[in-house]
């Protein structure tokens, strides 16, 4: 409370006390009215200040074109990118699971067959086997040896598929790096906006250094050119869709 305000309040309070003691009802009511009016006008002043700050902040928001661009273009784009990450990781997970599920029984079969043949082979080497049982053993060894290479090849193929399925990490990693850069940029712009609009800034993190801002700008420039293609994110004619397209383009260039 300012000095003059304080004196006014004190004068009012003293006059109120005197009038109450004298039993001057009209004067008491008048002074109470004055006090509440003064209180209201203070509230209105505060409210007016807040409204002006809010209005300026909104104007600043409209003036910062980059923020508008971030909100209208980059955020939906980032959402699309993150959805693509979900799709890719899901595909990779399913591909890996399928490959593993397919060869699990093959491994179990190979193990069980080897164990069975080994037990019978032991009987044979200890001469605990009839001629008829040996003929069966010999037949089973033959068919086991026949199918083992096919089973091994199946296992190798699926393991190789599991290996290839891990390529999602590279592509999704690149996409996530770009989204992180976007979030950082968004944060910097919001901090700058809050700092510049006269709102309370003490609780807000200090604005990023100019160097960091330059680095972000440079990074977002490269972002525009590089990185994995997200379906629907760029004009389709600018982008190749398969290795065949790449090969066709290169061969048109004399490759």
């Amino acid at each position, binding site marked *: 409370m300012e000095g003059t305000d304080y004196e006014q309040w004190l004068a009012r309070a003293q006059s109120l006390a005197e009038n109450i003691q004298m039993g001057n009802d009209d004067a008491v009511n008048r002074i109470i009215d004055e006090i509440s009016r003064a209180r209201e006008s203070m509230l209105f002043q505060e409210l007016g200040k807040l409204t002006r700050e809010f209005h300026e902040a909104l104007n600043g928001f409209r003036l910062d074109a980059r923020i508008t661009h971030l909100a209208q273009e980059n955020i939906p784009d980032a959402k699309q990118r993150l959805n693509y990450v979900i799709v890719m990781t899901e595909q990779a997970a399913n591909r890996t699971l399928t490959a593993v599920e397919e060869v699990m029984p093959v491994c179990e079969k190979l193990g069980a067959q080897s164990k069975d043949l080994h037990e019978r082979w032991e009987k044979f080497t200890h001469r605990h086997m009839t001629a008829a049982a040996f003929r069966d053993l010999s037949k089973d060894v033959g068919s086991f040896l026949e199918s083992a290479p096919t089973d091994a090849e199946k296992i190798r193929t699926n393991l*190789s598929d599991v290996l290839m399925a891990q*390529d999602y990490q590279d*592509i999704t990693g690149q996409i996530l790096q770009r989204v992180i850069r976007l979030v950082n940029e968004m944060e910097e712009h919001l901090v700058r906006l809050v700092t510049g609009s006269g709102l309370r800034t003490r609780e807000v993190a200090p604005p990023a250094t100019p160097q960091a801002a330059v680095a972000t700008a440079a990074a977002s420039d490269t972002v525009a050119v590089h990185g994995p293609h997200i379906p629907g994110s760029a004009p389709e004619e600018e982008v*190749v869709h*398969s290795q065949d397209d790449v090969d066709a383009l290169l061969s048109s260039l004399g490759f």
Partner: protein
Amino acid sequence: MKILIVDDFATMRRIIKNLLRDLGYSNITEADDGNSALPLLQTGNFDFLVTDWNMPGMPGIELLKAVRAMPKTAKLPVLMVTAESKREQIVAAAQAGVNGYIVKPFTAVTLKEKIDKIFERIQG
């Protein structure tokens, strides 16, 4: 044959390394971007370079240009394996003298085909 794989993602380097091993190539060195690849290329006698495009530090296209500019590596076969799928980028790589271009995600068969083709052309 001595091969250098350049990619900033360790998982992708491992995938390519495993695929190459499957194709019978086991003398493989790795680098995580152009800046760390160049000194290796200058000192080591590499026969083949597989590189990504989008990498922090020196990207693949700059590495390719640098490789072509050094007398020692000017004729080194270079295969680009990258998620960059814009036409202008493929054209830029071709102009910079790339020997093959594979877009990610790719298959083991594609990798084998491109490598075979590159060496066929070099020997022929």
